[in-house]
């Protein structure tokens, strides 16, 4: 449970992060860019956290929502004139994936359990990628779509939006967890049959978690679309947009609400440093670190501090 002191502490930390661009030049400083990407990943990791960490459904298809969010942004720009960083466009970029999550979640979540669900979401991601490649006239096919890059003026809107998304995602997680919804989700994660027996409408809660995660992920896709200005299926429906947030969530500590953030910041940092210092062999280093972390820090970085104080029973933790 969180108390007022912790809320104060978090507020101070967020304010400090918001002040970073005032100290450093956002245009030329790499640390700002690193934080921008880390915050984006943190938000996506939280999205995964909701569906997997708290509800226990391992979704391997987050990249479907990410790419869809990006394309919605492009279409909003092209067809509805909702341009650069338009809030309505971004909200739509979150809503459409959320709706897809509900539509596809209905059959997927009601019929499939565990690994079958994971495989199904993986297939979903791939199918969207292939459809968008085939979609030629509408989606630009494999050539993708371009946004007018002249709209770029400064790094600042990206930094603050990413920070906002990370905070938003964490607040959403916090609110869910503190509420009855969170209790229901955790109950479903621990023992689905018992939860159902206790009158919890399992499918409804699962859909809620799935679509909330999709919403956040879609928003992140929109942000990346504004950043890269070139949207095409190979990039935006790539599996790394699913795998990295999962890594960060699990290594940070899934099922907690600070875990994904710590995981995102730490892992992004490690990857960046590896790329700067060891450009040729950095994936070997990253791969090895991932393996070591999974083997020796099975409950995530965040639980390092709590060993011995809190038991390994996850149901007792928030």
């Amino acid at each position, binding site marked *: 449970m969180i108390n007022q002191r912790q809320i104060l*502490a978090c507020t101070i930390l967020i304010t400090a992060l918001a002040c970073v661009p005032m100290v*450093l030049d956002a245009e030329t*400083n790499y640390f700002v860019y690193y934080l921008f990407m880390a915050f984006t990943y943190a938000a996506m990791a939280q999205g995964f956290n909701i569906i997997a960490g708290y509800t226990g459904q391992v979704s391997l298809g987050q990249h479907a929502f990410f790419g869809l969010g990006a394309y919605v942004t492009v279409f909003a720009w092209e067809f509805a004139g909702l341009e650069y960083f338009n809030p309505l466009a971004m909200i739509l970029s979150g809503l459409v994936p959320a709706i897809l999550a509900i539509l596809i979640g209905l059959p997927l979540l009601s019929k499939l359990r565990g690994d079958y669900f994971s495989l199904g979401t993986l297939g979903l991601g791939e199918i969207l990628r292939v459809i968008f490649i085939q979609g030629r006239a509408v989606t630009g096919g494999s050539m993708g779509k371009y946004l007018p890059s002249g709209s*770029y003026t400064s790094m600042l809107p990206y930094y603050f939006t990413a920070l906002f998304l990370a905070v938003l995602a964490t607040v959403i997680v916090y609110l869910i967890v503190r509420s009855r919804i969170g209790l229901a989700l955790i109950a479903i994660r621990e023992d689905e049959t018992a939860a159902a027996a206790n009158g919890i409408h399992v499918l409804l809660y699962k859909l809620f978690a799935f679509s909330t995660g999709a919403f956040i992920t879609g928003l992140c896709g929109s942000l990346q679309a504004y950043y890269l200005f070139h949207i095409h299926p190979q990039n935006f429906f790539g599996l790394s947009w699913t795998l990295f947030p999962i890594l960060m969530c699990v290594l940070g500590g899934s099922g907690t609400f600070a875990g994904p953030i710590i995981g995102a910041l730490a892992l992004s940092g490690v990857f960046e440093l590896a790329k700067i210092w060891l450009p040729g062999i*950095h994936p070997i280093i990253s791969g090895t670190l991932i393996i070591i972390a999974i083997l020796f820090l099975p409950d995530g970085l965040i639980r390092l501090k709590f060993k011995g104080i809190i038991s390994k029973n996850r149901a007792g933790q928030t």
Partner: protein
Amino acid sequence: MKLKSDFTKLGFYLLVLAVLTVVSGTVWAADRTEILIGTPLPVTGILAGAALEQKWAYEQAVADINKKGGIFVKEHGKKLPVKLIIADAESDPGKAVAAMERLIKVDKVDALLSGFTTNHIIPTSMTADKYKKYYHATTCLVPPWLEQNFKWSTLFFFDIMQSAAVPYQVINSMPKEDRPKKLAILMEDTIDGRAFGGAFKAQAEKFGYKFSVDEPMAVGAKDYSSQILKLKIKGVDGILIFGADADCVTFVRQMKETGLNVKYFHGYKGTWAHEFYNALGPDAEGILMDGFWSEDFPYPGAKELGTRYAKKFDKHSVSIGLYYGLCQILWQAIEKAGSLDSAKIREAVLNNEFKGTVIGDIKYGDNHVAIHLSTAHQWHKGYQELSYPILEGGWKTGAMLPWNER
């Protein structure tokens, strides 16, 4: 939770943040000892193999200019050696952009050399524009690049319409009885494949050719037997294909297995690598490929560069001249600019003519683009003979022999 620990934790995080901020904000004021040139190449991932020649050519160009002591930069009053900094684009456009950011912000490079392939070049050119750093690009399709109106990059590549005309010019250069009568066009479903497909078909009309079969080629497919069967049924005897090297190998092997004989097989992108030849051996005899350059070009240093490569890798290249020449242009431009400032380098590139490179004399247009010739070569006994442009007393392109006559 203890009351104190919350603020202790906060204090810890704030301290870490402060340290990182200060460290990254420190400006390293150093006296100039070298010219920093960055490049976002794919060192890992599925494009890594295709970018190897580019990397090697860059490294050779840097080594060669440094052997002469470097480039004379008037502003610093002396010759400065070049340092090439390669950042891994990880075969992913988003990561290529991140690599550019790293090069510009962390390594603080003076100018940037091209990354690899259209869908990396366009986003990285956008990055160059964002931070107003000069980006010396190649390996990008010209039309989509031009559409973006980049201010801070230039492009040195071939004209796609000229390249698309080459197959027909090669066919026309073959003896009449060797020419294919029924052509098929198979383009992979990617940015480059689609663009080329459109160009090939437009040029086909101009030259009076028609395609009996027009289909996309699935990327990374492990089996083309259905498609080959269709070609066999239609009696196709000439194939124009755009695909990756592994796919082309699979395709040709299956052609042989099913007994589909063609007189003319012209591959773009996938048939020029020596690895393609290694996988097929005598079966590759007569297959045509596209190219950027030939060591048989009558330009200074071309043959020497080609021989150097052949000695090191025991195979020949039809691309290194482009990348080496690209570097030569940049070195000359830096010298003419007399400065390491991106704006001045850009002006120097746009306003000068560059002579004596391994790929000829080059001049950029007002639209920031310079064009070189797209070539065609034919595999003959493990060497890429130059089929186009047709040199006096040079190679004569012939038809492929049927499988059972080899």
